[in-house]
């Protein structure tokens, strides 16, 4: 058919699209609609359940993990980090009585960090657990890591407050809540491996998490980030961040 890409968008999925799309080839957009089969209320419910980790998240998702949440939560965190870090910089400039000019590298750095953490790390964890026979689900792993980022949205917004102690407390709350959320929901999968290997993977997960928290702290919410060197400080893996 000589019609272009645009015309393939005119399809009517309003009714019973998911059953039809199961047999679609993997390179078509219709194939991926099953990962975006969520309603607004479901996404909100999952976000709340990830911020306040009291229920088992896999039960909250009800066997249909989505990719909408992970992708857009990660993107939101990137943009919120850019916005708040520019506010933090301008506050610093105001306090130090220096002219403010924004640093665009915050944006690129946030893109790299957050997308790596939201997509590459769960992929690694999935690969490791798969290798050691834990039968993990890649989608669930991605959804887990993606929704675990939700807490960083309010934390980043509140970290605008120019009090160093408040920022550390907020960072601790954010890292702690999302860390507990991650480990609680990953534990059933990890416990299928041998105890020794499960412990190593768990520690790696915690280290990745601590590195993320410290990167966010030193790159975006530090007092003198306007004149800070471009290289991030050596991020010591500190499990105490949990």
């Amino acid at each position, binding site marked *: 058919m*000589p*019609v*272009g*890409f*645009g*015309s*393939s*968008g*005119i*399809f*009517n*999925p*309003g009714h019973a*699209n998911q059953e039809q799309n199961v047999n679609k080839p993997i390179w078509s*957009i219709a194939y*991926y*609609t099953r*990962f*975006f*089969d*969520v*309603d*607004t*209320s479901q*996404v909100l419910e999952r976000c709340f359940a990830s911020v306040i980790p009291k229920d088992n998240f896999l039960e909250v998702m009800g066997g249909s993990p989505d990719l*909408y949440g992970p992708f*857009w939560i990660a*993107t*939101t965190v990137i*943009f919120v980090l*850019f*916005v708040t870090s*520019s506010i933090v910089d*301008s506050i610093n400039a105001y306090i130090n009585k220096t002219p403010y*000019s*924004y*640093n*665009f*590298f915050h*944006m*690129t750095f946030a893109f790299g960090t957050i997308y790596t953490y939201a997509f590459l790390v769960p992929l690694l964890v999935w690969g490791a657990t798969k290798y050691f026979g834990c039968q993990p689900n890649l989608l669930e792993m991605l959804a887990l890591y993606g929704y675990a980022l939700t807490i960083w949205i309010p934390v980043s917004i509140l970290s605008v407050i120019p009090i160093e102690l408040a920022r550390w407390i907020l960072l601790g709350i954010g890292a702690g809540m999302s860390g507990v959320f991650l480990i609680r929901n990953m534990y059933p999968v990890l416990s299928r491996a041998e105890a020794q290997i499960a412990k190593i993977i768990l520690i790696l997960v915690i280290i990745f998490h601590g590195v993320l928290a410290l990167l966010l702290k030193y790159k975006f919410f530090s007092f003198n980030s306007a004149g800070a060197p471009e290289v991030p400080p050596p991020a010591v893996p500190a499990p105490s961040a949990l």
Partner: protein
Amino acid sequence: MSSNNHNSVEADDFLSAPSYVEATSYSDTYDNPFETNIPQRTHSPLIEPDDVPLPGQKPHSPVKAPQPKVSGTIGSTSQANSSSSTSGNIGSGIGLGVGQAMMGSGINTLDEPVSETLLRDLRNVGAKLKQVLYPKGRKDILKDWDLWGPLLMCLALSIVLSIRAQPDQKITVFTWIFIIVWMGSAVVTVNAKLLGGRVSFFQSVCVIGYCLFPLVLVSVISIVVSSIYIRLPLCGVAFAWASWASLGFLSDSNLANRRALGVYPLFLFYFVISWMILIS
């Protein structure tokens, strides 16, 4: 207008093969495929090339082609058309579907100067920009998508913001604004499609790009105005304006209870761009 054309078409026995209409399966939006016969713009994906011989139709010589007759009938309406703007043509019939807005002008474009061709495109872009600034009018003007407008918006935004960036970041800012605008509109569109919305890809990219126009205006104003007390309300208004305009165009995308999920990325996209204009 359409009945008029049908008469002349039937008289010529040109469209006696109904398979053409059925093969494209857009017969409901598309009752006058003859209007596409003017070989000036073939960018619409919905319209098949008209020089492909149809089944059951003998190839006709260009001299005997019924084009002059048809363009004559259309030309009677497009007299007013070419003088004012394309928008006059669009509202004239509900049957005019996607991608036909500019096709209706029956001007002979083969022997016109190049400047006239370029100016016609520019006038089209201008009409659409006007539509974005005042979204209450005809909504279907943006259904005839083009990528010139989004490209102009994107380039203007990138250039203005990179001029105002720090000296060592100019290239980075230009690159990233360019990437964010194109990738952003593509990702927002794909997201709406993945959620099950009825959107056409390029049409949505076109709408999102054109709706950047208020933000581009504010970014140009911010070159001379540096006071935050003026720029903050301006950026807020431009953000609301862009979001409102694009919402109006994308409102019929058939997303029942996941409408917020499709709209949220759009807000995020415009918010980030207006924020970058604000702090630049």
